[in-house]
């Protein structure tokens, strides 16, 4: 039996690691990977809560999060490809022209 509290703690730690990855990396691809890390950490918390409560709703939420993650990855990577075609870079610091 996995303790609920430790599962949530691991999930929180993984979420924060994903957040750090999004904030400190400059490659758009690795930033997308950091987002995947965060979504997975949230999924882990959902599944642990579903196990704790004994209801499958949490697992279905994790399932929908996976759907959203797949859509996000497809569109995000397409944007990165379009960006690379125009600017020859995936460095987010070099494509800050929308920032004032």
């Amino acid at each position, binding site marked *: 039996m996995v303790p609920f509290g430790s599962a949530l703690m691991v999930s929180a730690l993984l979420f924060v690691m994903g957040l750090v990855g999004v904030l400190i990396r400059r490659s758009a691809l*690795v930033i997308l990977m950091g987002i995947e890390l965060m979504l997975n950490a949230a999924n882990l918390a959902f599944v642990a809560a579903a196990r704790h409560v004994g209801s*499958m709703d949490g697992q279905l939420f994790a399932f929908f999060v996976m759907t959203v993650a797949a859509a996000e990855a497809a569109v995000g990577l397409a944007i990165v*490809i379009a960006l690379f075609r125009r600017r020859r870079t995936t460095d987010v610091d070099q494509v800050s022209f929308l920032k004032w």
Partner: protein
Amino acid sequence: MSGRELLFWADAIVAVMTAGVVILHRNPVVCALSLVLHLCSVALFFLLLDATFLFAVQIILYAGAIMVLFLFVIMLLDPAGEGVAGRAGKPQMALTLAAAAALLAVMARALPGLEKGGGAAALPEGFGRIDGMGRLLFTEYLFPFEVASVLLLVAMIGALFMGRKEAD
């Protein structure tokens, strides 16, 4: 400590280490491969938490499909690691680490309140299996299910539009 708990902690160490490689390594290919390992370790978490269907979906959809997409794009854009973008500057790094530590502290403080209510509830028959998931998906969650199908369609059209050749 039961065998399941031991496996959980071993898996937690693997998950944290692979996540560390993902956010710190300079080569995006290594990041992606480490992320595959991380997703598999999360799948093992799902198995330990009695979510057998999600365990299979996690490996097939995440570690299989999404990561192949990532690797394709990395190979397409960044051959031989040329022009690999590194990390942010020192001030941003320090601010990020401070904010991350603060967020972790807040979440750790919120934990004891969540743990109340004793041990885990008894599991109903077929918990986490595909038949139970399917029944819920097509009855109680029918509307979100249909919305998800529209979302995937929109994402597909969006990806096709973004990735098309320039007409001009």
